[in-house]
């Protein structure tokens, strides 16, 4: 008998004041259809709230969606707060209206992957698939 594998737990989050969450919801539906456990924070959550939810819900990944251009300071704050909460093991990915020149800066902060507008959904799904293999494979037997 094959052991029932734990599925990846993902928190899709919107921070800042922007209210455009169409893309965040589309991704949430894609990930759910792929079988992952997906939560969506709703709009305008503070970084503190996102960190709190991520820890309480024991998620493996936080996906932050941006539209209005605040991705650099917001991601910086998230990485900092995760560190302070000893939750650095939570993987952070960022997507949305992100100029290419900012991708490197985000990765330097510790963001695992960046999906700017124009990214094919297959690339995003591949990333999550590999991530699940890494994370959930490592924990096999712990479930």
């Amino acid at each position, binding site marked *: 008998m094959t052991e029932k594998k734990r599925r990846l737990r993902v928190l899709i989050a919107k921070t800042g*004041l922007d209210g455009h969450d169409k893309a965040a919801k589309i991704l949430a539906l894609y990930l759910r259809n792929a079988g992952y456990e997906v939560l969506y924070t709703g709009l305008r959550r503070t970084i503190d709230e996102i960190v709190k939810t991520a820890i309480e819900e024991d998620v493996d990944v936080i996906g932050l969606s941006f539209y209005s*251009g605040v991705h650099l300071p917001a991601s910086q704050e998230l990485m900092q707060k995760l560190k302070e909460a000893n939750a650095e093991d939570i993987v952070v990915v960022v997507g949305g209206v992100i100029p290419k020149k900012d991708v490197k800066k985000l990765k330097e902060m510790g963001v695992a992957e960046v999906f700017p507008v124009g990214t094919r959904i297959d690339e995003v799904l591949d990333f999550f698939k590999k991530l699940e293999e890494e994370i959930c494979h490592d924990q096999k037997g712990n479930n």
Partner: protein
Amino acid sequence: MTKKEITEKDLKKVVLESGIEVKPIYRPEDIKDIDYERDIGDPGEFPYTRGIHKFMYRYRPWTMRQYAGFGTPEDSNQRFKFLLAHGQNALNVAFDLPTQLGLDSDHPLAKWEVGRVGMAVDTLKDMEIAFDGIPIDQISVSLTINATAPIILSMYFVMAEKQGVDLKKIRATPQNDILKEFISRGAWIFPVEPSVKLVCDIIEFCAKNAPKVYPVSVCGYHIRENGATPAQEIGYAFSIALTYIDKVLERGLKVDDFVPRFSFNFNVFGNIFEQIAKLRAARRLWAKIIRDRYGAKNPDSMKLKMIAGGGGSGLTYEQPENNIVRAAYYALVAALGGTQTMALCTYDEAYTIPSAKASLIALRTMQILMEETGVCDTVDPLAGSYYIEWLTNEMEKKIVEAMEEVEKWGGMIRAIENGYIQAKLAKQSYEMYRKIQTGEIVKVGVNKYRMEEEEKVTEIYEFDEKAYQRQIERLKEVKNSRNNLKVKESLEEIRKAIKRDENLMPYIMEAVRHYATVGEITQVLKEEYGVFKEPSIF
């Protein structure tokens, strides 16, 4: 051997987004039930299918209104003057997110957003600076503001008063459509019911005091951006409009007192004939609803006024220059659909806040259409086309279906509070996106004729730290120089008026006169009304 003749069965099936199957050829029998006087009518005549004015663009071409508003009021003032100097005849003002959400520039949550997606406004002082030297009695101004519309419109009115312009002469359009914010754009603050009350306060106040203001612009546009089909765009927008109308009627106004000043904001992207038929069907259906359901007598109540323009969702991040071409088609469609006002998303919107160059190209796109192509010569030139008239009929049926769906949900307010409409649109957005990913919906440069490319748009808007500091400084100065006792008193008067359930506009205008801030006034409203809690739709 004889070659097999190709029949309709050999052709690929075509179904429009609104769910209408399209034949390859239309003939007279497809429109044999149409009665010209009853169903189409001359332009300017009921049911206004062909347009709300007799001579349309032959007499008065559409108004061009690009969205603008940058950083501080000083920056916006310069951009407004630039656009007016280049032939634009109306302004469309964008506000930053803190202003839209009722937070002052010095609020901790506002820190990254001040002046980013539009103009920062904290007090009347900012409005005075933004419109300094602009002839507001000669142009019309759209204020793209919703949750805080009562405050921003009050500031506009008081600024006008101080410039010596009578309220009765002011031509302005606050967007003031909060219900679409809950459905699409997300810039809501208060719960649904009090939010609608504030919308109606503006409608009532303007009907009585500022008759040239269009107090609400009902936005199908954003609902379409967020996954609605073209038919749902109109249907849901009408359901929203009727929600406002019913609430204002409860206050004792007559339909002809305020409905003539309703306007709509519609989206153009996708199948071009579907969009043209959509706008024609919308005009006809609106006229019938307002006359037959509400018993309007004034033809002006039945005339659907609109701004229509190229939607951002039709544009692509890939090969961004292609968006200039797309926007030109959208402009043509908006003109063939008979809009009064037009705006186009700029080619660089997937990258950044529109650059001055991109805004100018969008303006020139509309000007080329208007001046060079003959599109203004003849009203509704597609009328009588077998296909267009058939499709107009079909679109009307689909719009009615969407409105009936909202009724089944218990009306628009319940549909939003329970998240029904949000959930439906999220699923549809997902489906549309999926079809683009699989190539079922072709997007040139995205899923067909794709190529490796360098990032094309390099003129990216950068946050202006100095402008932010200037804005904070000015807020401080205003707070130090105003009469704080008067501010406190006027804020308390707003609170009392809320408890008495009065129209808040006169009280908010009074607070604004004393330089109360957007944040201070919003805080009082939050304390009394509470804040909206998003329904979980997953």
